[in-house]
């Protein structure tokens, strides 16, 4: 399966179908999700209207983590099978993941102010997400600093794979750390306790975010491949022109 789609032409054919499909689905689902979360769902009995921040916040946090998982899988595939497409995917996923992480932190902070009375609380989950942002930034900085494309690909893959082990340990250690000094005001959202009228808009928004991320990743992958092909064509044309000039003179 993997090697089947690592052929650039087959990938291009697939991307031509999937890009408009994902894009359309993302837009429709985002529209429905926004309508459900902001107009068609009731305010929370405890949190009032501020519950609506959850519908943009929770899917962003989920995408921040899911995209890191995707980055690690793409890096693993590149590291083991050396598919150039997997590395290109890792390269375009990283900035997207960082943006979703910033979005999650930002909306979380906006939600925290009315709920906990503070913009930032050093609780386990928020701290882990902040560390996740640092991991994304380190990955992008390393890739940007390496000029040789192959070195950047291989070194980035190693760092991304080490990062997933690290993030698991960070999760446990930060839980332990915050249990030493647990603030009492944290509101917990455990899956089953959430009411159906809130679960629906949340689920729609989560699916919409997923398609949005898939759309953006495929779009950027394809435009990167096109850019590379355009550069090769231009180089070929310059070469032909030079040969013609030599032949004329």
């Amino acid at each position: 399966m993997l090697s089947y789609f690592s052929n650039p032409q087959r990938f291009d054919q697939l991307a031509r179908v999937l890009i408009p499909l994902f894009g359309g689905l993302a837009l429709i689902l985002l529209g429905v999700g926004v309508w459900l979360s902001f107009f068609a769902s009731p305010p929370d009995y405890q949190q009032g209207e501020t519950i609506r921040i959850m519908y943009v916040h929770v899917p962003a946090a989920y995408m921040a983590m899911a995209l890191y998982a995707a980055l690690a899988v793409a890096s693993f595939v590149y590291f083991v099978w050396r598919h150039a497409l997997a590395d290109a995917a890792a390269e375009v996923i990283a900035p997207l993941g960082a943006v979703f992480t910033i979005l999650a932190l930002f909306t979380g902070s906006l939600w925290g102010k009315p709920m906990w009375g503070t913009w930032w609380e050093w609780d386990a989950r928020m701290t882990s997400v902040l560390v996740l942002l640092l991991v994304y930034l380190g990955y992008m900085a390393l890739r940007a600093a390496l000029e040789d494309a192959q070195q950047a690909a291989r070194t980035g893959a190693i760092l991304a794979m080490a990062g997933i082990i690290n993030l698991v340990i960070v999760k446990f250690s930060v839980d332990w750390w915050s249990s030493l000094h647990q603030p009492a005001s944290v509101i917990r959202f455990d899956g089953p306790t959430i009411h159906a009228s809130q679960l629906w808009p949340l689920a729609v928004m989560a699916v919409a975010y997923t398609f949005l991320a898939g759309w953006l990743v495929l779009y950027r992958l394809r435009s990167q491949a096109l850019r590379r092909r355009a550069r090769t064509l231009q180089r070929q044309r310059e070469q032909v022109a030079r040969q013609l000039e030599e032949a004329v003179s």
Partner: protein
Amino acid sequence: MSPLASIFIREARLAWAGGGGAAGPAAFFLAAITLAPLAIGPAPDLLAAIAAGIMSFAALLSVLQSADRLFGDDHGDGTAELYLLSGVTPVWLVLAKVMGQAAATLWPMPAIGLVGALMYGVPIGPALVGALALLAAIPALALIAGFAGALAAGIRRSGLLIALIATPMMVPVLIFAAGAGRSAFDGDERALANLMLTLAVSLGTTALAPFGIAAALRSRLG
């Protein structure tokens, strides 16, 4: 002498001769813990409460200080290629290398941590626990700095990049090492658990990081 022993000794002597040995990290550590009270204020209760945290934080920063030297020079002059061609298992080789540098440069850290904690007004018992935690944290800190250093070897002004890569990985060991000193100061029974967890992170890092460092070293060649 076995190749691993000679690599260990070469690295220790290089660190000793080239960078002032233990003096560099130790002086940086001392400077950091001198500046912290000046920034925070001289209130004795506050300083005693944060002493363990400041000591671990300053230790982390001073380990990062010398991280670009370990693999940067070898990458620049071709020693790294020779190492990989030498037939010595790369995983053992990089472990000997990192530990060689750590042995030469990082040994004063627990002692300065102990004296620093006493200066911040921590009683001798909890200060000793904090110093032990620093000792237990050294392998993890050195290996993580080595991993980041191997990834960024030979990049110009790599220090900042190494710090950015290494800090998220140093989160667990920082939490447990500082937690040991902190809970010892609070009279919490979790001090021992934190100390054990610091040691566990160090052992786990010793088992895993050499593979990462060896792979990183190879990925930066050719």
